[in-house]
Structures are given as structure tokens and as C-alpha cells.
């Protein structure tokens, strides 16, 4: 058995995200098209599908963060739902006990909550990689889950806490309009675009390059004078912040927070979405979140045993298409172009 800290990820057949696929302009056009489509959806789709799509924004934001860790830094977290839980519960507490009504301070304070939790967790976890990192993050996630479940007087246990609809940008509240499918939808879309832009800057910066270097050869990175733990810690912190913001959105979209948000299977599903969309691509996780939600809805309406179907899909992806939907699409595109 090799040592837990020095084991390299060593996957040769899977290409990691390098931004080299289709051309930049085409990519930009596709992204703009995606945003326009998302913006038009409330005009086209029924209210049911809009409500169904609400968690999409939350998961997309969380997965952008998770993939900085998984795709770019090579660390697999099986406890990332912890930060969604922290963000969601922070928002719920702030509204229930703090009387806070405005969305922006909610996001900022919940984000701060995620950072406060992520610092000690990250300091411990980044000393490990591979399976040990996964297990340690799983342990922290479950620690938080059991706190939520058992400390009934603070958290209301498995009943969860109802979440009100906060005021957006200081003036949009719920009076007279369909809050969730109207202003809140566009608010989330805007937030997703901003957070994606920030993440794009991060992964294209020297910092992002350094993370990839740490992922591919941590020994060499160390000998080049890169503080490997420090960079992994930063990546962990950023991904936690994304998780926290996602938690707030999820809490408001669902109108309710409950402990299963941070159960280990929720973390597993997050990794599942990332892989489904394709962790080797920047936009893969977003595609994965959308595909997961739509697929789940379809399969559930046909057959109650949706987990059986999803398990089979996940197994097929892991075995045959580890670069996910985006990987398949890029492959298909290359064939068409040639």
C-alpha cells in the first residue's frame, strides 16, 4: 500500500480540463446561447418545469466549486453536501432567529459561515489525497448531518426549518408577483453567470494552472517551490464558498431546509452530477446538474425505482465514458468537423 499523502491520481486515459476542445469563439457563442435559452425558459415552460429547474442553479454553482476540487485539483470529496448544508442552514437561522430579510446579506453571511466551517475542515483534509481525502470529508459531512438531526432544539431535527422568501436587491419582495419563477429565477441565473465568470477567471489564472500542476505531479510541484497543501487548501476554501452560496439558493428555492441536504448520499449525488456532465470540462458540471434533474424527474414519473436506473447510468459512465456527456459531445463534434 502506498502512503496516503504521496499517492498520485495517475489516471492516464482520462483527460483533465485544459480548455482545449472546441474553439474559443464557438464556445463563447454556445455559452451565450445557453444563457439566452435559460433566460427565455420561464416564457416557454410551464410553471412545473420552472420550479423543477430551480435547484439546477444551486447545484450548478455548487458543482462549479466542487469541480475546482475534483477536476482541477484532483481531490474527490464525498462530503461536499456539508457546505450546501452549512449555507442553507445559515440562511434559515439568519431568517428565523436573526430576522434578516434581504438576500444579499444572507448570501454574504452564509458564505462566511461556509468559510468558518471550511477552514478547520480544510486544514485537516488537504493533508490527504485519494481515498483518505474522500473519507475524511465524508466524516465531516456526517458529523454535521448528525448535529442537524440530533440537536432538535436548535435545528428542529428531521422536520427541518421553513425558509421564507427574502427580499432581492433591496426592493423585490413577494407581493403581487410569482416570486420563484419570476425575479428569483433571474436572480439565480445572474448569480450563476457571475459565479461561473469568477470561476473561469480562477481556473485560467496562474493560480488555476498551479492547481493543475499540483494535481498532476505534486512531488514536482513541491520541488518547484509550490506549497502543495496551501494550494489545495485554497481550492478547498473556494469550493466551500461556492457550496455555501448554493446552499442559500437551494434553501430559498425549496422553501425548506432539512438534514438530508448534507447526508453522505447527497454528497455522492453531487459527484455523480459532476461526472455525468463531465469533470474534464469547465461547463460539464453545469450540464450534469441540468441533465441529472431532468432525468430524475422523467425516470421518477415512469418508475418509482429511479435509483436503480441512476445507479446503472452512473456505472456505465464510470466504466465506459469517464469524461461524461461533455466528453461524448466533444467526441461527436470532432467526428462531425472531420
Amino acid at each position, binding site marked *: 500500500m502506498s502512503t496516503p499523502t504521496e499517492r498520485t491520481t*495517475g489516471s492516464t486515459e482520462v483527460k483533465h480540463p485544459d480548455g482545449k476542445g472546441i474553439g474559443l469563439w464557438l464556445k463563447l457563442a454556445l455559452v451565450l446561447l445557453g444563457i439566452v435559452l435559460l433566460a427565455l425558459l420561464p416564457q416557454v415552460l410551464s410553471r412545473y418545469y420552472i420550479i423543477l429547474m430551480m435547484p439546477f442553479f444551486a447545484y450548478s454553482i455548487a458543482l462549479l466549486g466542487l469541480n475546482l476540487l475534483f477536476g482541477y485539483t484532483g481531490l474527490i470529496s464525498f462530503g461536499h453536501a456539508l457546505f450546501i448544508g452549512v449555507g442553507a442552514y445559515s440562511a434559515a437561522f439568519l431568517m428565523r432567529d436573526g430576522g434578516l430579510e434581504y438576500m444579499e446579506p444572507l448570501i454574504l453571511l452564509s458564505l462566511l459561515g461556509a468559510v468558518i466551517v471550511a477552514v478547520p475542515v480544510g486544514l485537516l483534509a488537504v493533508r490527504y489525497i485519494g481515498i483518505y481525502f474522500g473519507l475524511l470529508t465524508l466524516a465531516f459531512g456526517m458529523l454535521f448531518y448528525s448535529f442537524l*438531526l*440530533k440537536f432538535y432544539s436548535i435545528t428542529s431535527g428531521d422536520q427541518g426549518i421553513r425558509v421564507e422568501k427574502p427580499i432581492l436587491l433591496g426592493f423585490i419582495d413577494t407581493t403581487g408577483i410569482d416570486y420563484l419563477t419570476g425575479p428569483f429565477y433571474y436572480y439565480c441565473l445572474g448569480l450563476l453567470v457571475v459565479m461561473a465568470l469568477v470561476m473561469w477567471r480562477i481556473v485560467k489564472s496562474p493560480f488555476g494552472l498551479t492547481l493543475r500542476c499540483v494535481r498532476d505531479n505534486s512531488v514536482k510541484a513541491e520541488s518547484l517551490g509550490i506549497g502543495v497543501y496551501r494550494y489545495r487548501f485554497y481550492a478547498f476554501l473556494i469550493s466551500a464558498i461556492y457550496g455555501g452560496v448554493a446552499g442559500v439558493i437551494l434553501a430559498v428555492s425549496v422553501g425548506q431546509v432539512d438534514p438530508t441536504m448534507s447526508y453522505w448520499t447527497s454528497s455522492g449525488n453531487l459527484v455523480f452530477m459532476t461526472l455525468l456532465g463531465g469533470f474534464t470540462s469547465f461547463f460539464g458540471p453545469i450540464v450534469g446538474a441540468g441533465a441529472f434533474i431532468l432525468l430524475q424527474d422523467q425516470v421518477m414519473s415512469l418508475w418509482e425505482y429511479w435509483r436503480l436506473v441512476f445507479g446503472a447510468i452512473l456505472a456505465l459512465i464510470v466504466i465506459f465514458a469517464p469524461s461524461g456527456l461533455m466528453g461524448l459531445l466533444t467526441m461527436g463534434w470532432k467526428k462531425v468537423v472531420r
Partner: protein
Amino acid sequence: MGDVVSILMSGLFSAAILFLVAAGLQLVFGVMKIFNLAVGSFYALGAFFGATLVNWAVGEGLPQPLFFFGLLIAGILLGVIGPVIERLLRPIYDRDEAFQLLLTFAIVLMLEDITMMIWGSQPRSTGSLYLVYGTVNLLGATVPVYNLFVIAAAGTIAVGIGLLLSRTAFGRVLRAAADKREMVQSLGVNTRRLYVIVFSLGVVLSTIGGALVIPVTATMSEMGVELIVEAFAVVVIGGLGSMRGALVGALVVGYVTTLSINYYPPIEMLVIYLVVIVVLVIKPRGLFGGETA
């Protein structure tokens, strides 16, 4: 005194069950280097199948006191799923750990629903069967004889695995394969068959654990995913891949659980994970980490 003995015995009982499941996890990890999240689902399968088989056998007129063996047989019979799942895992033996973990997560999702499809969400139990052996009075504490049987069975299995690994030719091959698979293969060992055997053995250990727990409780739809996190705590505390670690870890988790349930139930899981984190921080590879199988 009665209270102390009572806590000692119920801690030992949970440790016995946990050890069986964790041993399945360790054996597979030790040899195949795959952390199998699905052991919890095997455990649940063992519980459901054990309850069904025993209830059926008793209904057919088999003498009730034989039900303990019925449970063991149920666990062993489920070994047939071992080769099937091992076949599914085969393509990813040389892949990144993240993918191995994810594939076993896919198996968890599938097995959860397969169990639901077969048995539904109604709790299953074997009723008052476990009282056919009566109870004994140990220094003022009333202990069901069945619990002693389970503890004895787990102890026997633990000794059996220990002897198998240390004293037999097969055990030596296993330990060698755990260290250097290619070397063992080039020496003429059929490692493909070895993996099938090891994985099936791991399945059987977990399913026996599940089958044996059922008389004292009832099956629940979430029992598998809940147990995996406890089994996970056991192996992390004990050290991944080490059998001795599984034993010590099971005792630690078993007693921590029992003590907190007796004195302050809300902190049960919290304490387990605190122990896990403390152990990982102080001894990253667990108390017995680095030993092979």
C-alpha cells in the same frame, strides 16, 4: 454491577455485528484496494433475506432453535452475488480511486432499489424468535442467550480469518497479492479467480452480519446506507485493510455507540465521527494502518 455488565454485553454485541461488516470491507480493500461503499447494502440484503428465509423455514415446521443456523445459511447463500458484482468492478481495477469509489456508489444506488423492489418498504422482523434460547443472568444483568451466540459466532469468525490469513497457503497467497499483485500473478497465481473469491468472501461476511442482527431489531429501508457510515468509522479508526484494525475499531465504535445511547443519545454519531477525525489527525492511517489484510 448489573448495569455495567448490561452495557458491556450490548456494546460487545454491536461490536460483533460491526466487526463482521467491517471485516468484509477490510478484506476487499486489503487485497483489491477498493473501498467498497456497498458493504452497507450487502448488510441490508443479509438482513432482509435472513428474515425471509428464517420465517419461511419456521413456517414450514423446522424446529425454532435451529433459526440461528438458518441466518448463517442465509448469509452464506447471498455469497452468490459476489462474483456478479466483482465482474462489474473488474474494468476499473487499474483506475483512479475516485472512479472506484463512484462505481461502488453506483452499486449502492442499485442495490438499495433492488432490495426495495423485492421486499418493499415494510419492516421485516423475526418476531420473538430470538427469545427461544432464553436469557441468562450475568452478575445481575439479563442477557439474551442469542446475543451470546452472535458474539461467539463473530469471535469464531475473527479467529477463523486470522488463522486463514496467517496459517494457510491460501492466506499466504492473499497477503502476497495484497502487497504485489503483479508479482503474485507472474508466479502463476490466478489473481482473477483470487479476486472473485476474496470479493465473495467479503460479501458473505457483510451479509452474515446483516442476517445476525435482524432477530434483535427489524429491517429498515435505510439500514444499508446508515450502516456503511458506521462500518466506515470502524475501518478508519482501525486502519484501512487491517483485520486487527477492524476488530479494534468495531469495539471502539460499538462501545462509543452503546455508552452514548445509555447516557446521552443525541451525541451518538457525533462522538463516533469525532473519534474518527481525532484518529485520522493523530494517526492518519488508523491504529493498525499499513498492515496487509
